[in-house]
């Protein structure tokens, strides 16, 4: 898990604001870069993912930005909503997902 460093550890955003979570990795063998979302008492669920040959991917309010040379990728949540309050994990994959430590997002209304 030291292969993946996620920041910040926690984040508080006003409703309608932008949430940004960053992930830095070490292993250049990773071939798939997803973000997972986890609600209390539930297992993680895929939110959005990107391939290393693409620099950005957008799905609705969620965007991944990928910087291969810097070995970093980030999650942007536009127009953040209270329902987005959850823990977010970057989890790059070689043969299995390697999870970061997570970012707890709280969106205040």
């Amino acid at each position, binding site marked *: 898990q030291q292969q*993946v460093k996620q920041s910040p550890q926690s984040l508080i955003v006003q409703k309608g604001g932008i949430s940004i979570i960053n992930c830095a990795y070490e292993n250049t063998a990773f071939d798939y870069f997803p973000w997972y979302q986890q609600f209390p008492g*539930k*297992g993680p*669920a895929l939110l959005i993912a990107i391939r290393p040959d693409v620099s950005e991917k957008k799905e609705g309010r969620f965007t991944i930005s990928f910087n291969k040379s810097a070995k970093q990728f980030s999650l942007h949540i536009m127009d953040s909503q209270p329902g987005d309050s959850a823990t977010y994990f970057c989890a790059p994959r070689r043969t299995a997902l390697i*999870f970061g430590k997570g970012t707890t997002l709280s969106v205040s209304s």
Partner: protein
Amino acid sequence: EAGVAQSPRYKIIEKRQSVAFWCNPISGHATLYWYQQILGQGPKLLIQFQNNGVVDDSQLPKDRFSAERLKGVDSTLKIQPAKLEDSAVYLCASSLILAGYTGELFFGEGSRLTVL
């Protein structure tokens, strides 16, 4: 489509006792994973199966943990004897394919273990 099923949802045991967790993956998913999630941390891979063969068990504490996947479907994770530091949520996940750019993991709700 039914999701990944896990049982029991909660288990409380004394240290040095044994415990077993069961997982039934999504039908047709060849790959099955067990992850350990300690409170406040990200899930940590314990073991990965492809059908009924082990792909990666490098982080499984083999002196106390064991896992099997008979007939390439259901899986059981056992801890014997349990230690206090084994208190965690044990997550089972499954996926359709092993390699490539896709291969979303579908997680169960987990089995929460408390060791006293």
